[in-house]
């Protein structure tokens, strides 16, 4: 019984999903916001539980799972992201006619998979957790059917996701073959004595393909722009923040914990992938005229910055990653919140549709501007602190060229992030757009404002979070 406490947050998500599935049957179609509210409560409870469990460490279920600071941090982060996504989906999903009970049930299942990744202590658990997070997401991307772009998005995500899963499993098989171990610590233990290192290395590389796909690292990023664009925006917001966090923790667990002693083989590859991802993400975003697609490329670029932390490794690199994940999530959620708020119902994704937003919706323009500045990394936003930590960790271990590429690509990113601000503040609104003085106090607005405020607060007062993250990272087991 005690062992269940070790996986309490993911358990809450999963049980919440099961219960909600049944409760939802009793909720009439027009009252689905009730389902959303309950899902938010479940999500918040899981996050709260993770925070209350802070400091817990141990492993259980015959070494299948473990808990440490990073696991709890991920639980809390995805829980909060879950609550905020639900906050955004009420209005957006209702306008698009996808305010369905299953939406929230599937989200909770996906959240349980994400949370489980942090607790996984075995390749099998990691594999199952990744599938548990992915399969509901395939469905959520396509939930706006029969919209063609939503269907196309789901199909592309599904086919490529399953393809990448194949690589992941094959890689795991090879690693198992080389070490005879499935548990992460077991692999770490036998790494030194393994007689078939090449097999191990090929297995590790194939696992990197599968996990790199989840975090949208180049060259496994190809699905990202299309899927993000076509999926309902709330799902996109969820994917770009929560999935990325879970994916990076998976990379951390597989490569940091299990293959840590092999670091001098995989770290150069991580550095190369990081550089490639930063370049492709930022270049791709540069000439986008579609805001959602631009944010998708921006998400790829940020996977590159995060990979830099893993390539640098050590406490300082990993700490940078774990700090940057919530920083990025806050900014990204703020951006998507503003995006879904700016238009009613049928969203116009082109950047030019946001012209003059500072006059028609001043509050949302501010939220969007804060998000852009944080993504760009202008002090004193959270994005700056996070990027600084990542770049510093790279310099510290001598990855100077990588840090230079990072800084240079952030300069490039200035071009497209600022274009959004220019459009909102320096261009006249299109004809016939009503000016809204002040924002009605809606759930949507509160969510967006909180995300934007978090982007600034985490930049001005990052110390408590940095302390917590440091404690979490040093407790990795």
């Amino acid at each position, binding site marked *: 019984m005690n062992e269940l406490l070790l996986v309490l947050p993911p358990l809450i998500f999963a049980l919440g999903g099961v219960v909600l599935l049944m409760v939802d049957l009793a909720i009439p179609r027009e009252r689905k916001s009730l389902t959303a509210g309950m899902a938010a409560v479940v999500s918040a409870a899981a996050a709260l539980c993770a925070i209350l469990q802070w400091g817990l460490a141990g492993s259980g279920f015959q070494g299948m799972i473990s808990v440490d600071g990073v696991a709890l941090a991920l639980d809390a982060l995805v829980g909060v992201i879950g609550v905020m996504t639900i906050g955004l989906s009420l209005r957006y999903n209702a306008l698009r006619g996808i305010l369905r009970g299953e939406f929230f049930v599937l989200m909770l299942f996906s959240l349980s998979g994400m949370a489980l990744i942090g607790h996984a202590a075995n390749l099998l658990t990691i594999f199952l957790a990744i599938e548990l997070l992915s399969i509901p997401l395939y469905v959520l991307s396509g939930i706006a059917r029969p919209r063609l772009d939503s269907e196309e998005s789901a199909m592309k995500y599904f086919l490529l996701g399953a393809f990448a899963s194949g690589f992941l499993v094959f890689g795991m098989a090879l690693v198992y073959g080389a070490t005879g171990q499935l548990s992460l610590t077991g692999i770490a233990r036998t790494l030194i004595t393994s007689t078939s290192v090449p097999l191990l290395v090929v297995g590790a*590389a194939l696992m990197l393909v599968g996990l790199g796909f989840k975090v949208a690292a180049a060259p496994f990023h190809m699905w990202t722009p299309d899927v993000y664009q076509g999926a309902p925006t709330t799902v996109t917001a969820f994917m770009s923040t929560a999935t990325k966090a879970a994916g990076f923790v998976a990379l951390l667990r597989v490569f940091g914990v299990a293959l840590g002693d092999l670091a001098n083989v*995989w770290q150069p590859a991580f550095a190369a992938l990081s550089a490639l991802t930063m370049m492709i993400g930022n270049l791709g975003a540069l000439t986008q005229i579609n805001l959602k697609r631009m944010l998708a490329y921006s998400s790829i670029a940020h996977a590159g910055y995060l990979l830099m932390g893993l390539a640098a490794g050590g406490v300082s690199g990993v700490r940078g990653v774990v700090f940057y994940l919530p920083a990025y999530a806050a900014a990204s959620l703020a951006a998507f919140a503003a995006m879904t708020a700016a238009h009613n119902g049928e969203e116009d994704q082109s950047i030019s549709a946001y012209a003059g937003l500072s006059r028609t919706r001043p509050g949302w323009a501010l939220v969007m501007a804060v998000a852009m500045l944080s993504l760009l990394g202008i002090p004193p936003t959270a994005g700056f602190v996070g990027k600084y930590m990542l770049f510093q960790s790279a310099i510290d271990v001598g990855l100077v060229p990588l*840090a*230079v590429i990072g800084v240079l690509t952030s*300069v490039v990113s200035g071009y497209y992030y600022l274009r959004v601000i220019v459009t909102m503040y320096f261009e006249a609104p299109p004809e016939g757009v009503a000016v809204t003085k002040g924002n009605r106090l809606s759930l949507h607005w509160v969510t967006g404002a909180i995300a934007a405020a978090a982007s600034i607060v985490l930049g001005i007062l990052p110390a408590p979070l940095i302390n917590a993250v440091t404690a979490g990272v040093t407790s990795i087991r």
Partner: protein
Amino acid sequence: MQMLILLPILLPLAGMLINAAFGARLGHRTVGAIATTAVAAAFALSVYFFAQVAGAPDHAVSGNFGPWINVAELEVPYGFRIDALSATMMLIITGIGGLIHLYSIGYMKGDPRTQRFFVYLNLFVASMLTLVMADNFLLLFVGWELVGLCSYLLIGFWFSNIKNAEAGRKAFVVNRIGDVAFVLGVLLIFATFGALGFKEVFEKAEHLKPESAGVLTVITLLLFGGATGKSAQLPLYVWLPDAMAGPTPVSALIHAATMVTAGIYMLIRSHVLLEHAPVAMQVIALVGAVTAFMAGFVALTQWDIKKVLAYSTVSQLGFMVAGVGLGALVGAQFHLLTHAFFKALLFLAAGSVIHGMEHLTLTTGRHDSDPQDMRNMGGLRAKMPITTATFIIGGLALAGIPPLAGFWSKDEILAAAARTSPAVLVLLGVTAAFTAFYVGRQIYLVFFGAPRSEAASHAAETAPTMTVPLIVLAALAVLGGLLNLPAGFPAEGWLGHWLESVIGKEPHAPLDLALAGFFVVLAVAAIAFAVSLYRRFVKATQADPLERLGALHGLSFNKWHLDGLYRAVLIKPFYAGASFLARIFDQGGIDGLVNGVGALTRELSVTLRELQTGFVRSYGLITLLGAVAVVAYFLFTLFNGIRP
């Protein structure tokens, strides 16, 4: 005491927040009053701290407000420290800033976006104060980035003109290129010294082993790279002339008096590092001198009243940078100070002139001539007496005519150059002559002779909120030289003594009468020459008398043909094969290079996006390609002898 040190930053910040939240309901006059009061109060506090610093045993007041970024080995506090150098900068920022706020009330009258203007202006003052009060490199960088952001927002302030928005974006991006160098410098400082606080870094730098001198040179050059962006030096100066698209008070405050001196401040602040990197010092001196010369040369033939001042600013910043490179830190800071006085004055007076020139348009609605083109002016001294007098004082101070402020500060830098580097002396000396010439040309074309357009003949003096700051600044431009008189004068070298606690004792020379006399004669001659040339310029459509110089005039007027040069030397060979790119570079110029790099990046972006075909199977193919590549890379590192 601890908390009090934050007040100079918090006051403008509070002014900004009040105006941002309630400004719409307060009315433009109140908004302006609040903003100005906030900065004036910050000025009073700066004076208070100035006195505190003078009285403090270690000549500094500091406050630490807990950690900002604290990761075990990296502890960056919210630490502020006011020492002699910071206190001087604070007085400039809040003093001149306050005057410019006051001036802006009149200048922005009737503009529907006054509220936003003052919000940005207050934010700028707060950020600039953060920059000079920070006690570590990272917090300095916060201010550094925020002033850049404000500058960007204010350049593009009149966004209805798309060119303004473009200029703003260009300023931001070019500055970010400088920032890349600066960030890398900061990262390298931490990697080298394990600290970011000024005190720790400089102490460790003093005891650095000689074999690490190479690192110091790299760090110093990277920091200087940052300064070339913010302080508009070659090759990144391109943004500053364009930045004049913003409102004139902004040009005065941000792009002449304060923000552009941030690079100089940062270099002086890091003088300990500089002193251990003689090679970097030489580079800095040379870049400064060449920038001064080239920009001064371009200023000779410009027609736009603000463009002349813009290039002049670049040129004078070059003087300061050269001063830093020559080791004349006091001279550089002194020139920074006097330049802030007289260049702010010149810009505000120019703004007043433009306002006066627009008088006809405002009263009759007629709009027939460019109010910034000096060819359309002439004879304004009768219509705008205060503006004329103050402009002439500012101009003569800039030209280095004794006993005005500019003479003393420029002389110190020239004397330092005479002591150490003949090449720099020649470049700066010629620049001084250029300066006097374009000042004479500008003053004569604007205020003397007969009006050359209807707008000029109907110009009118501007309101007192605008003229009072002019008078105050003119007084400062006259008296500023007293702050650091050469040895042998009463109260000699006050600024040098004052800064001793920060930059150490610098030898203080008496006035070299021969050198000073030579340059004064040169300046007077250049002004006289300019006046004699432009006496005959009576019609707006007339050709510039300087055109008789032929190729040289073209060189100056077309800003060194850097367009063609860059295209021929750098761009054409580089992209010879890629003819499809050629059209992008037709815009040309250093601008062209900046735009060209941008265009190249965009081209890359478009190419990259063509790979994104939309076909799921081709995505899968690239995934497979990535898989094969990653496996190969893993095996490669493995077989390269690296075993776990």
